[in-house]
């Protein structure tokens, strides 16, 4: 059981939770994730660690409401407990000084990008960060990102904040202006697919952090398997970061849709039950 010490809304559907987890706070590195389960009948889902405070023994998770499980988690309040939390899992990000790093975060994918941007900056890189979202209210962690970025670009689909356009538009303009040595892209699978197509065009090494379906998160079930460079890899133990140019994103998108209908139905049922009980 892990206590929630702070809860903050980034937007209507995006919540930041600060959770007591001293061992995880101490052991985690950029790129690591946790598996979280809420309630005795809850589902196990993976969430990348957005930040940690070793001294206070806490970790930050940023959660977007997209289904029953994320709703249940985001409905918890300060002082409540998470039933089960395990981590840090996965391979940590490989961080070294390469020159200029172009970090691109889409939607809630900005949260797992934050510790990587921080680590890349600390390693002595010039970091150019692009935050992209549909509209202004979905842009998160801007101040924290600015702190570790030499340059910060904001892209919104509707132009309500920053520049109007997709993440890929922002990437093109950066790449045209300066030499980029490494790119990191984290966000929805479809965003990572198109973002990595841009860097492939310019031959820029790129890594993506994959957010597949998982059950145990320790290599036991294989639900998270993806094809990378023609080989089957498990995101939980081999990843979550891979060479984005080798990832079969189409297959990943397909596999992510495996439970979509069931999940939608479960979410609708959950919402209507909640309304009835009010």
């Amino acid at each position, binding site marked *: 059981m892990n206590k929630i010490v702070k809860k903050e809304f980034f937007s209507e559907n995006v919540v930041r939770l600060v959770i007591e987890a001293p061992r995880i706070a101490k052991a985690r590195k950029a790129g690591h994730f946790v598996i979280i389960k809420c309630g005795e009948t*809850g*589902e196990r889902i993976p969430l990348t660690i957005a930040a940690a405070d070793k001294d206070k023994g806490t970790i930050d998770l940023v959660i977007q409401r997209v289904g029953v499980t994320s709703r249940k988690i985001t409905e918890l309040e300060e002082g409540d407990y998470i039933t089960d939390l395990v981590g840090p899992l996965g391979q940590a990000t490989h961080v070294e000084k390469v020159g200029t790093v172009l970090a691109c975060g889409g939607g809630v994918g900005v949260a797992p990008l934050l510790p990587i941007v921080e680590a890349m900056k600390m390693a002595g890189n010039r970091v150019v960060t692009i935050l992209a979202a549909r509209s202004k209210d979905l842009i998160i962690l801007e101040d924290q990102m600015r702190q570790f970025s030499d340059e910060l670009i904001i892209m919104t689909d509707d132009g309500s904040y920053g520049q109007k356009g997709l993440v890929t538009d922002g990437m093109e303009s950066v790449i045209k202006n300066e030499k980029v040595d490494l790119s990191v892209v984290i966000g929805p699978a479809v965003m990572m697919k198109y973002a990595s197509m841009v860097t492939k065009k310019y031959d820029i090494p790129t890594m993506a952090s994959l957010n597949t379906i998982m059950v145990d998160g*320790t290599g036991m079930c294989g639900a998270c398997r993806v094809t990378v460079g023609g080989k089957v890899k498990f995101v939980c133990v081999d990843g979550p970061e891979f060479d984005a140019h080798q990832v079969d994103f189409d*297959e990943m998108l397909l596999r992510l849709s495996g439970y979509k209908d069931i999940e939608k139905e479960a979410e609708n049922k959950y919402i209507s039950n909640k309304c009835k009980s009010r």
Partner: protein
Amino acid sequence: MSVNPDYLKEEREQEWRVVLRSQKKNKERTDLVRVHMTEVDPKIRVQSNIEVNQGLSEDDAVNEAQRCLDCPNPTCITGCPVEINIPKFIKNIERREFLEAAKVLKQTSTLPAVCGRVCPQEKQCEAQCFYTLKLKKEPVAIGYLERFAADYEQKSGKMAVPEVAPAKGIKIAIIGSGPAGLTFAGEMCKRGYDVWVFEALHEIGGVLKYGIPEFRLPNSIVDVEIDILKKMGVHFETNFVVGKTATIDDLKDEGFKGFFVGSGAGLPRFMNIPGENYIGILSSNEYLTRINLMDAANPNTDTPIISGKNVAVIGGGNTAMDSVRTAKRLGAERAMIIYRRSIEEMPARVEEIKHAQEEGIEFINLANPLEYYADEKGRVKQMKVQRMELGEPDSSGRRRPVPVEGSEYLIDVDTVVVSVGVSPNPLIPSSLPDLKMTRWQTIEVDDDKLQSSIPYIFAGGDIVRGGATVILAMGDGRKAAASMDNYIQNISK
């Protein structure tokens, strides 16, 4: 480690045993017919998770116990990886001292109610029974009797908590709470160590919980055994991945003196054939974990499961049987085993195959999947299989399956469960660069001591064996406990 013959003889010469033997002639005993296990009707049992084997009545158990000749040289014990004093517990059943019988079991076995259900007795104790070896008759039903005594004790509410030696104040860590880890925990606790079990999942029990289905081993049975360990003083830490949450070195700094790795054979193998990543194709580990650990088939839980009408399970082991029988219970109209050899070569227990056949499982033997096909949404809809025939025996002694050219055909499927084996979990080894591994990526240990290349680390179960049984894992736990105890006593001298 072997059972002391003098001790066995002394026990056998106890007055009550002598009297019991004299009450019936051996001829009368050997004329008795082996008891039958009551099983729930297949048509009824496939509609729920009810346990298939219903256990023996008291009278049935006593009658069966009378078949045992209480041999002067009890060969059955040599077939038991944890060396239960088999004649002693059976004779206690014969004289209706059922709680005494359970006590005998627990002297050497941490999980008797589990073993009584899932051990392959036909290959172990019962294969070494006098009836099997010399009389060519059906062996004494040792497994059924074990289960009877253990269940009797569980139901009696008078569970004996094994005696624990005075506390030594030495902390021992166990990685993984499956059969190897639990056995090791019990054995070390009895010796007076301060025992901590670290489990990656949110539940204690390992494969006994996530793997073996309710209809073969109810979780409640496992929980009773775990409760006893808690009462003995074993500490359990769930949601703790050693190597990640804390490393072995961290734990050493926190005062742990010895480590036992029983982390199991975690990684599921796939066949690497085209289309294997389509939706609806999953490993048996994922399928069974969703159902058994996450209770996904229960509409009141959040974990989803897709289990279709035409389910093919690839493989012929116990896990394949567990998966296909689970599919049937989840409403499959066609639940199929696809196995590349013939039924004679199947590694699954005879009883599991028999139960599966009774439940209407279709066995498509001598067939091997080549490719999967999906609909426009990426969901598997068909598989191509190739007929096989048996050639010369291979290194396993089983006849090698050889493809029959031009024999490919299609089978309609909407769920495929791949159950072709597992590889050892790399989590622990990858956090310990100095730990010596075999070329199969299992932990290399000394055969007798189960000690690894790092002297304070011992290991057992599937992380050493690659993929074996519950009872062999338990045997390892017991053996490793004895040698770690020796090791610690030596270094503290």
